[in-house]
């Protein structure tokens, strides 16, 4: 950490800061300049609040050099984390595609969507049974019946299932059906939930909150890791900016940034990232080109009649075309996508 003192800070003020740093367990390297003094602080623990120093008299600014997270950081573990669920490896060379409807609405709808995404090359079925919506009057999901339908469809098509867990009370129930727990953007800082998921023995995908910084997002992953669950992946899903044309601003730069800071796999969600069906494919292509370890995409067999997020769901034919394009992009950066040959069938669109 570096503490920059104000110009003409008094000796007493500098001494005060040195005393505080020593009390916090740091070794202090003092560097006195003509106008201002800079204090370098090394050692000490990660668990300190820079605000404690910023409020001291004579301090101009405090810069942290180490990240406040540990287990999630690249300096703690230099190799990429690869999460293995049977034959699916997330974080390896293959870009893993997770796809499916926003919510489970009926047995027929889930089956049609699962069959379509499997044929196109997805490895994981996505779908919600409990839907936290912005409005309390919107469709809220099918509950356990939805979980049963989703898991059955996933098993029939040899797909893994990812679904959202919204609070502590659902962990046990959802854990019986899901292969991956999804923590939604709205829950990214629900620390009691994250702590509890740290005890789970199922991988967890932590979505980035709509106004979360990358550091806050990695700290959320740290909660799960610190609880003892090493299988954590991150998901960029767009952040809130001043732009209103798209639902969110999809932060593609977060992908390489996080991959440098952390060893955890990064998944991109271009569906929520843009909120517009016609923008999903370009952003998905960009995310793969940027190095995403996976994609999570909403695909609905009849999006115009979907009970939630229809506007951002791809038609199966559009998803199929997207997968074909990704199969060309991935090798350009040394990645693969869906290795097995895919049956070509028409969807009648």
């Amino acid at each position: 950490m570096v503490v920059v003192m104000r110009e003409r800070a008094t000796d007493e003020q500098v001494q005060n800061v040195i005393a505080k740093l020593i009390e916090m367990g740091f070794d202090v390297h003092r560097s006195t300049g003509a106008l201002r003094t800079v204090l370098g602080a090394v050692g000490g623990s990660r668990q300190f609040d820079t605000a404690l120093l910023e409020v001291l008299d004579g301090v101009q600014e405090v810069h942290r050099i180490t990240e406040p997270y540990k287990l999630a950081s690249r300096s703690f573990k230099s190799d990429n984390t690869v999460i293995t669920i049977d034959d699916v490896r997330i974080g390896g060379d293959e870009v893993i595609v997770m796809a499916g409807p926003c919510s489970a609405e009926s047995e027929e709808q889930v089956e049609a969507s699962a069959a379509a995404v499997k044929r196109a090359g997805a490895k994981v079925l996505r779908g919600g049974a409990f839907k936290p919506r912005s409005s309390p009057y919107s469709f809220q999901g099918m509950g356990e019946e939805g979980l049963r339908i989703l898991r059955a469809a996933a098993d029939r098509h040899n797909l893994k299932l990812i679904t959202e867990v919204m609070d502590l009370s659902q962990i046990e129930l959802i854990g019986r059906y899901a292969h991956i727990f999804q923590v939604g953007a709205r829950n990214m800082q629900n620390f009691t939930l994250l702590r509890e998921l740290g005890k789970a023995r199922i991988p967890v995908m932590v979505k980035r909150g709509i106004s979360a910084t990358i550091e806050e997002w990695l700290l959320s992953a740290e909660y799960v890791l610190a609880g003892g669950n090493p299988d954590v992946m991150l998901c960029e899903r767009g952040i809130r900016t001043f732009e209103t044309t798209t639902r969110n601003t999809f932060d593609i730069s977060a992908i390489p940034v996080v991959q440098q800071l952390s060893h955890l796999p990064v998944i991109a969600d271009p569906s929520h990232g843009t909120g517009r069906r016609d923008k999903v494919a370009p952003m998905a292509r960009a995310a793969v080109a940027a190095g995403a370890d996976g994609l999570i995409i909403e695909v609905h067999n009849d999006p115009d009649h979907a009970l939630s997020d229809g506007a951002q769901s791809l038609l199966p034919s559009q998803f199929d075309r997207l997968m074909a394009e990704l199969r060309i992009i991935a090798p350009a950066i040394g990645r693969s996508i869906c290795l097995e040959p895919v049956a070509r069938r028409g969807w009648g669109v």
Partner: protein
Amino acid sequence: MKADLEDLRKRIDLLDESLVRLLNARAACALEIGRLKREMGMPIYQPEREAEVLRHVHGHNNGPLDQDAIKRLFERIIDEARHLERIAEEVQLNAQQKKE
């Protein structure tokens, strides 16, 4: 010319040897002070004493290093002494804990 350069470099090497010896002698002294401070329950960081040290060396400075340069150099020496005292304290604490 070349011989002069060689001579001067040799002189620097000898001076550096003396510096290392002196710095270590100073560090040994600081360690002993650290031990006494702990016994008397005094804090490691004593800014008024550090200021006194700087005043003292300034009084003996005849250049060509200016007073600011001397200050910066001694600040580094003091930083390292403080570090040494802290490590010694940790070692002692650990040894005590083990005994207990």
